[in-house]
């Protein structure tokens, strides 16, 4: 598991009040309580706050799983 994935799962477990063990790379919106459309926006906001990386809306709406987020984060430059 990459560092990005570890940190993301920690963030998500905290945001959605679930255990990290419930989260797999395939987990997507709707699979856990709270990860609905509003939860998705909250997640993008928290990612920006904690990773310092902004995921554009156009990419955010295409996210289907934790693996998608990890791929995006690994390919986005951190904001200065």
């Amino acid at each position: 598991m990459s560092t990005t994935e570890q940190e993301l799962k920690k963030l998500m477990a905290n945001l959605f009040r679930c255990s990290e063990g419930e989260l797999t790379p395939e987990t997507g919106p709707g699979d856990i309580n709270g990860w609905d459309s509003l939860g998705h926006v909250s997640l993008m906001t928290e990612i920006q706050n904690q990773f310092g990386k902004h995921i554009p809306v156009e990419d955010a709406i295409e996210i289907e799983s934790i693996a998608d987020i990890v791929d995006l984060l690994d390919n986005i430059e951190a904001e200065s």
Partner: protein
Amino acid sequence: MSSAVNIRFAYDSLPTFAATLESLRAGGSGRRIAVDDRLDAMDALAREILNPASELRRQVPSQGLAYLATFLQRSYLEALIKREIDSLESLRGYADVGGRKSIRRVPRGVVCHWLAGNVPLLAMFSWAVSVVLGNKNVMRLSSRQQDVVSPFLETLQGLSGTGERIAGETVVASFPSSDTESHSVMSAVADARIAWGGEEAVTAVRSLAASWECDDVVFGPRVSLAVIDPDFVDAKAIGRLATDAVIFDQLACSSPQCVFVKAPSGSDKLAAFRDAFETAFRKATKTYPRHPLDFSESYLIELDRARAVLEGGRVAHDTSTRWTVAVMPAPNDTIQCANHFIQLIPFDSLQTVYDYIPLNIQTAVTQLGPKDYESFTEEAAHRGVCRFPRPGEGNNFENPWDGIGLVSRLTRAVIRTNGNR
């Protein structure tokens, strides 16, 4: 206007309404609220929408709320403004534009919004842009509509001093369409009018007398479509396309009604896309429950299914009237395509799509190969299409919208020659 003003205007009499609007217009002699403070206030409102414990989430419809929370974020609003005027500097002060000239953008004044009956939440987007640009606002709802505006204002008012002042610069009014005197009073005070809705509604607003300086922004009865090459979409994109088509029950002007599919009629490619789309459409109609249909709406769906078959279409639908996908040899204008009813039309040449594009086209959700994408977005733009979002973005309000750049319309651009030497 003081910050303690009542933000909710319950319409009771014309003189009260007129006095409220005069007070709004005359107010604002205190310290102006800077654009950065306005952006911060909108950002705080976005965070409140995202707060699961917020009362606001129980007071307003959930459809479109997640996108509104994104839209109100400072970074998003900044990007949206910069798309039109490059930077926010001219909203903060005079900004050098070269040749010893500077431009300062100031608020236009009072912006009056007539909300659409079908998707009232849309007006919150134009309201937010107008607020950030420093305008005062009047939001008119039909007396039959749920008041979606006041809960946002009441929330904003409680978030900060700036939020309270901004909320105090918005008046919410509710009166019937037939109350022409109230419409006239509202129109008379407007420095800009924003009309959302169908032809009858926007024509009625435009026919009201207004100051000769008043600018009109009309978001009228437009229609939308999608153009897809199955070779360039996966199951996820098809799912997002289905979502575009069901959200707001296809009543929004940006909801695709016909989906043009680049595949020969009767081909395996078309059949595969049709099957994938039907699966996604069935799923999306469950995820986004529709408003309860009345008898006439159900009847129209049954009628349209029959029309589609008689016109040579192949119709797939559920046992009720929850969803319908009609594969048609050509687009059929007599089919209303609302309430989860989609026409799929195969095409070999983009000319088929061009021939269909109606005069009131707005959005073409587009996913094509690179060559087709370039030629389609160029030619279709000249035929009236205003937006080419990808699947999933169809209903996301953005700037420009309907070909109109809101920043230019809701500000006055003041020019000066630099150096008072």
